[in-house]
């Protein structure tokens, strides 16, 4: 439901409710006023009758009509709505309305009494003379009073009901006007194309919209960053694929033209090597691009490091054999849990494999590559040349490969390691081993999930 409709509906429900409450109060007030007015009149009527009776001991005929006429003068009320009765000391009916109702004689009662006579409610005022020789009663139908209260209330209610449509119209207009910034924002966003992620200006927006706009602009910035990363990655990837592709093309040309069997065999071996490199590069690219979107990977399983080490070392064994590198792993003292954490074992295997692969690839032949676990860290080290400061600074830059390398690499391994480590809350640092030589990678708990 639109905000506008919602607001109007609330108004339509709330206004009558408020009005009804106001009506109740005003009916009560009106009834009070009317009662007060009529009661005074009845007291005066009774007093008048008694005074008349006292002045003329036998003036029954003249005493009975005058007050009744006075009371009947108020609007369209009937003469029968009023009644007067007089009794003597013995309780004998002396005078009163002959055609109206007979008010009951209640000796000893003084003041107002609500009676039910001939099926109708009456309000009757009894007055006893001081000497006790007369008893006077003046009554009025309750209906008379209700009618007046109703008339009073109705005359108040009518303008309210007449005004309601006007109020709704005014409200609709006001809501429309108040919601104009929302419509403008909608139009602005609808008119944009998919690549337009400029922030929406917040300065002129109403304060209610500002948090929303702020959140939206924040989202825009994040989307823009993600898009830029994607674009850069695609461009880098396309660029990086050119060289291995060039190798394949050129080597394929050589194979086709090869004159001798030996030449062909050599070219084919090179072609296979080129394919391997290409394969590696594409695999790494895919791994990294999957990792980029792996924000929601389940990180809850307990990590069993021995299995991970076994798997990762197994994957690096052939390379290590080819280069004459020995692999070793050092565990903490028995009974101590190595690097306890939860995470995704498959991802951690990829991470360790990349670390081992780099360590093996760039170590001098005949040396040792060591994986070392302690309770709070994981280290991988080799005996290669220490990294120069500018190399350290460019670690993790995608597709960056230090100069003068004989071994082919994708230039993505460190990026992959860093990404997986970040997903697990591990911090990665590169440096020389103790004693200065070689390269050591240290993974430490920053905020790992224990």
């Amino acid at each position, binding site marked *: 439901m639109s905000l506008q409709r919602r607001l109007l509906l609330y108004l339509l429900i709330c206004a009558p409710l408020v009005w009804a409450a106001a009506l109740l109060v005003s009916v009560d007030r009106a009834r009070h006023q009317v009662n007060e007015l009529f009661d005074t009149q009845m007291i005066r009527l009774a007093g008048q009758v008694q005074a008349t009776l006292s002045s003329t001991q036998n003036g029954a005929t003249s005493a009975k009509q005058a007050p009744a006429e006075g009371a009947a003068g108020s609007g369209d009320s009937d003469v029968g709505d009023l009644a007067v009765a007089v009794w003597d000391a013995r309780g004998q009916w002396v005078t009163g309305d002959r055609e109206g109702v007979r008010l009951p004689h209640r000796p000893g009662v003084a003041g107002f009494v609500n009676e039910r006579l001939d099926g109708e409610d009456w309000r009757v005022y009894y007055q006893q003379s001081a000497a006790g020789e007369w008893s006077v009663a003046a009554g009025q139908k309750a209906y008379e009073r209700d009618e007046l209260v109703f008339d009073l209330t109705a005359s108040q209610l009518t303008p309210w009901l007449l005004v309601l449509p006007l109020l709704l119209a005014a409200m609709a207009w006001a809501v429309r006007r108040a919601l104009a910034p929302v419509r403008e924002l909608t139009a602005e966003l609808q008119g944009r194309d998919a690549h337009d992620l400029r922030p929406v200006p917040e300065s002129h927006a109403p304060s209610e919209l500002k948090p929303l706009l702020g959140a939206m602009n924040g989202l825009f910035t994040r989307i823009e960053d993600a898009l830029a990363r994607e674009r850069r990655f695609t461009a880098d990837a396309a660029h990086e694929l050119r060289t291995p592709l060039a190798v394949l*093309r050129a080597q394929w040309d050589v194979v086709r033209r090869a004159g001798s069997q030996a030449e062909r065999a050599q070219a084919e071996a090179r072609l296979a090597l080129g394919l391997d490199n290409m394969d590696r590069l594409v695999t790494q690219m895919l791994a990294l691009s999957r990792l980029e979107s792996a924000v929601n990977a389940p990180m809850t399983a307990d990590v069993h490091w021995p299995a991970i080490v076994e798997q990762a070392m197994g994957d690096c064994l052939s390379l290590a054999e080819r280069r004459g590198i020995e692999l070793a792993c050092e565990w903490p003292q028995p009974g101590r849990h190595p690097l306890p954490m939860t995470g995704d074992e498959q991802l951690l295997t990829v991470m360790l494999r990349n670390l081992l692969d780099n360590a093996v690839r760039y170590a001098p032949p005949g040396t040792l590559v060591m994986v070392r676990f302690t309770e709070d860290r994981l280290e991988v080290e080799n005996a290669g040349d220490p990294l120069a400061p500018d190399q350290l600074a460019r670690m993790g830059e995608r597709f960056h490969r230090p100069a003068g390398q004989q071994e082919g690499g994708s230039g993505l391994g460190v990026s992959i390691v860093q990404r997986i480590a970040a997903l697990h809350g591990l911090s990665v640092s590169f440096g020389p081993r103790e004693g200065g030589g070689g390269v050591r990678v240290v993974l430490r708990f920053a905020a790992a999930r224990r």
Partner: protein
Amino acid sequence: MRILIVEDDPLLGDALAAGLRQVGHVVDCFGDGARADAALAAAAYDALVLDLGLPGGDGMVWLGRWRARGSTVPVLILTARDGVEQRVAGLDAGADDYLVKPITIDELAARLRAMLRRSSGRAQSVWQHGALEYDPATKAVRWKGGTVELTGRELALLEALLMYPQRVLSRTHLQEKLYDWSGAEPESNTLEVHIHHLRRKIDPSIVRTVRGVGYALGTGEGAT
């Protein structure tokens, strides 16, 4: 033709060198600018294939240095950088051609031929010298209308001579055009053997000997 390849990816360098050797060129391949620089100073190359992303100094920097030194060797840039501004910068820095990886050996060879044609001031793709016709694309040699079969080295020698028809070329220069640095040192008289074969297969007058200096292309009219 003797060609220098500067390419840091060893697999690609190997493939390019092997491919160009197959089409009859003499090729050296180096992985960085400094060694290429030394090679360029040591031998007379007919063309240079230059990668840009080199360790220890960008290819463009080296190209600028060589051009500043007055080197006129035709340079073909072969790189993964495909931006228009990068092409423009490469050509402006003194490159004669700019190719983006990947390419086929055929195209690379054709581009090199075209570059060479321009650098030697020829407009036709078939080189003509008197009664001798040589097509560097097909390596076909015709003498007075008849086809002549030549070996790779003989072709390279003929090409080297045809490149500068008016000049006397030293033995060292010719030898440089025939052998790269990968193979064994040539026998001291192998050049004479190849020249002897050229004279026998084409015409004795095709190569003139200039005593004490070297060799030059003959008139190309043939003995009458």
